[in-house]
């Protein structure tokens, strides 16, 4: 599970790096008036990361407190 999450985390960060420094100025492309860089870094990637974490969160862990 940790390996899968580590891979997903790396992919999310790599996506942002691609938009910042990748070819064709992809990050500057406007979607609904806002740049793709802001959409991805500010909305899509954080929400994806949170959903992925909840999906991979082990169910039935006993409370420690």
């Amino acid at each position, binding site marked *: 599970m940790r390996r899968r999450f*580590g891979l997903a985390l790396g992919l*999310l960060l790599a996506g*942002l790096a691609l938009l*910042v420094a990748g070819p064709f*100025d*992809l*990050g500057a492309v406007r979607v609904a008036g806002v740049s793709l*860089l802001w959409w991805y870094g500010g909305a899509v990637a*954080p929400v994806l990361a*949170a959903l992925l974490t909840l999906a991979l969160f082990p169910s039935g862990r006993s409370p420690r407190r």
Partner: protein
Amino acid sequence: MIAFRFASLWLGPVLVLGVAAHLYAGGSAGPLLVLLVVLGPCAALLGGRRERAAEASRVLAPLTLLAALLLLSAGLALFGDIASGVGAPRWRGVVIAAGCAFALTVWPPAGRWWPRLVPAALLVAWLVLAAVAHASGLGPMAAWASVASRSAFCFETTSPWVRSGGTFPTAGVLTFSEPHRVQAASPDVFGVIVSDGGTTSVEEWRPRPGAAITLRPGDRLSYPAGARLIFETGRRVPGAPRSGAAWADPAVGASGAGEFVRFLGLALTFVVGSFPLLRPGAPPTRAGAAVGLALALAAAGWAEAWAVYAAWAAPDLFLGTVRAGALVALPSLAVGGPWGRRLTGVLVVAVLGLFVAGAAGLRERIAVFDRGGGHDLALWSGVLGLALVGSLWPHEPWALLVLAQGLLASTLGPLALMSSAIPVRTQVMASGLGLAAFAVGALGGRASGGAVAATLGAYPALLGAPAAWAALRLARPRPA
């Protein structure tokens, strides 16, 4: 409550307002930091060791205390900046924030309800944001598009900097990109740095209040802390991005080793640094994890929207250096009048709520090390007192936060990530090696030139974390 405690340690005012300041400044780090605000808790919820064996380590207590000292200092320095920004003495902001944190953490009944301060403070911050958005008449996306389409960031007629003048809380240098007539409002000593045909000359300017000087494109003006200046309406704000397009897409097409190393440095510092801070108190249930992540998303979203409205309504906050503490003044600038001042006051209270909740969370972490010895209060008072005294001198709050996170990432982060139990001697050796590499990166990077070296100096966890990790991997016990 576990989820609120978890969030209190992460969503401090320096992180939230610091991310907003990076977004406002228009750097490529802004969107990355928004992602890291959420990735930090995500990583702490899923990765690392679940058992608390590391707490037996003799390295955990001093390093956690040092990180707590830096985190508290960052928060108090921010309140010093906020006080300076509203014209009050710096020490007053520091002492009030430290006093509130101390009172809350030693008052026994507060132990039951302080974790609720985090969602309450975020709710209040969102309500203030809604009021600013209502006053602007634009939704966040429309405000972003409006900022991105500006030809320049100029002083507006409503700006206090063009009417009675504004005060610089700290010393700095302004760089002018067009002719600008600047009027002194205080009898300070300024430096006029003129670059002409490859030669640079520095002249002292000692004006009487009301005296003016005209600066040309490329000229720089150095000012002392507390200096007051009046600028011209309609002129570009010195220090602001060239245009809205430069603000919106500052890094697109950017490349180079320095930028890449900076990207890695931020990611490593905040993701690995979150483990030792958050992992021990991570919610054990999916519902708790969902609440913790929802709070992180709420804080990240607030920082984004706040930065956009600040760039839309308050371009004069670009003046000099963008400071996180200055962004709390947005309601005064966007709404204006007594309601603007009231909303600023409400926001400062919400920011204070985040700080004292974080302080209470840190006190709980520190109390673990006392092991029933009865010295918990003395230990906490000592740490908070040291942070208070240190914060009376101006420091950059964001730099202190990065230092604290980097220290954790270089020493305790790799320990928290290892899945197998590690002998105490190996823990001490790995943490010591990580700390030494962290110190070498911090000091060496700043002393030597070059973009990559400077970035290593700013994010020394780039050296410290891999060094500690490699030491642990090499020295870990292998199954027979």
